[in-house]
């Protein structure tokens, strides 16, 4: 395979495998007083980091790289979460007791969740992305609340009581595979001709059109892909918490992802990874300041906007994110 030719890619894969092994050992092997060093709570925290990373990177595809302003990303997450939970819990009643049946159903269910979310993304994006300007922000905000309200009044989805009893399929392995595969796929897309077109739309839509790019189609495609990954994240999220409530996916949740993205750096994939990682782990470090958490969040955002307008990462990427570039051809010149 071509990607193995680069030593850096190999090193990155090794690091991830090592990280997985270390975490797996720490979370299963009893070390102190018959308890593993990392209890279930920390594993769940790590899982949330993964989910938030995929959510933020997929939001960054639209907001950061394509320059459109979507502010209802949690709506698509809700679509994915409820679709997958509907399949595994309400219709098929699968459980974790028989993993050979459970996991294939789970994987198909979260993919179905992604596809339905992508469909919702198309319905929202296709009409509003034709227009230039702030329409998308208004439409996505409305769509987010619309989705939440529809779920609230649908009895089969648990209505305002929420939907419980979802089997906990999301374990450490699922989180590793889900996060890495999703981020790699989106990274690949950003580093491709389509990714360059996205940035062209962001920099100058008129010049992009004049360069032969179907800007409307490109914007709608990115939006649909972004909604797909948000849907998948929703599915993984639902099977982690085992209980979902419409208010989990309110506008406030969307706002959180916007904060993660813009603090991390909206025009950098690394930023969209750093942002959610910091903000998911930060409350743990500040556990003693529980009440002050909501003061710290906006404060960090304000400070970032003042001192690093482009986010923590700016336009930089970690080296493991980058694709091996073309060989310097200028040697003879």
């Amino acid at each position, binding site marked *: 395979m*071509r*990607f193995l030719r680069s030593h850096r890619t190999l090193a990155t894969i090794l690091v991830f495998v090592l990280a997985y092994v270390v975490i797996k050992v720490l979370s299963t092997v009893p070390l102190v007083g018959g308890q593993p060093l990392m209890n279930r709570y920390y594993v769940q925290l790590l899982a949330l980091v993964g989910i938030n990373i995929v959510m933020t990177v997929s939001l960054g595809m639209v907001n950061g790289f394509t320059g459109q302003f979507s502010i209802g990303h949690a709506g698509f997450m809700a679509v994915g979460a409820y679709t997958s939970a509907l399949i595994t819990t309400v219709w098929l009643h699968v459980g974790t007791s028989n993993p050979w049946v459970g996991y294939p159903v789970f994987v198909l269910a979260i993919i179905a969740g992604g596809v339905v979310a992508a469909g919702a993304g198309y319905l929202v994006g296709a009409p509003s992305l034709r227009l230039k300007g702030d329409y998308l922000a208004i439409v996505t905000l409305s769509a987010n609340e619309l989705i939440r309200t529809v779920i609230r009044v649908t009895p089969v989805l648990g209505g305002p009581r929420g939907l419980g009893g979802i089997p906990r399929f999301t374990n450490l392995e699922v989180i590793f595979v889900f996060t890495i595969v999703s981020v790699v*796929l989106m990274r*690949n*897309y950003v580093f*491709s*001709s*389509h*990714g*360059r*077109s996205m*940035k*062209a739309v*962001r*920099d*100058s839509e*008129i*010049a*992009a*059109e*004049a*360069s*032969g*790019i*179907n*800007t409307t189609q490109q914007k709608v*495609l990115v939006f649909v892909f972004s909604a797909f990954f948000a849907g998948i994240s929703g599915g993984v999220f639902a099977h982690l918490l085992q209980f979902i409530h419409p208010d989990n996916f309110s506008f406030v949740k969307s706002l959180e992802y916007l904060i993660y993205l813009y603090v991390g750096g909206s*025009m950098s994939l690394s930023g969209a990874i750093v942002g959610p990682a910091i903000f998911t782990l930060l409350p743990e470090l500040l556990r003693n300041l529980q009440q002050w958490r909501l003061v710290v969040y906006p404060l960090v955002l304000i400070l970032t906007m003042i001192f690093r307008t482009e986010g923590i990462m700016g*336009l930089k990427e970690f080296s493991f994110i980058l*694709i091996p570039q*073309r060989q310097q*051809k*200028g040697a003879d*010149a």
Partner: protein
Amino acid sequence: MALLEIEHLTEFFGGLRAVSDFNIRLEHGEIVGLIGPNGAGKTTVFNVITGVYRPTQGTIVFDGRSIVGKKTHQITQLGIARTFQTIRLFSQSSVIDNIKIAYHFRMPYGNMDSFLHTRKYWEGERMVDDYAIDLLRIFHLDQQADNVSGSLPYGAQRRLEIARALATKPKLLILDEPAAGMNPAEADELMTMIRWLRDQFDLTILLIEHQMRVVMGVCERIKVMDFGETICEGVPEYVRNDPRVCEAYLGKGA
């Protein structure tokens, strides 16, 4: 057969007639200038040709096909490329990416190849890398290939914009004030380049320009517009001596 043929083109903006009864025939390989005072409707003509505006009336036939009602990107794909009055580069992308973006619609791989980085993706990328570097070398921009295009000096940005337009492999190149902001030496260089591009890339060129030195020096035919009307048309010597042209630029009695 003419490459571009516009007949009875009229464009209204609400009640304002920006262009009225505009006609032009561009033969293959010509360099034609479009001049006139500010607000004469020159850029509107360009915007109508490239599909930014839809003509109120009139026909536009390019390469034997009507392009009225087509979208800008479709018209570019048919072979009309343009530059802008104020530079519009993809300023946060690198110099080489600006060229590659203009190659996108001919890229032989699709969305799934982009997600999975298949063999087709790598082949396409290798091809476009070589293509873009070769094109940049022509414009002496290959040394800056990996720099952010917004950081280039003004003259280089102008050159890059033309290079980007050429990357769409056009038959007709339309330049909106290519010499704007250039000193006489740079303008001379530009004139040489325009002629050379025409021969090298087998182009037909239509340009708007305010610097008379450039217009008179490079164009084989000139069309003069004022208040949306065509007031004079012909070879440079003829246009230069036409009293109506002097009047349009300087006013009556000048």
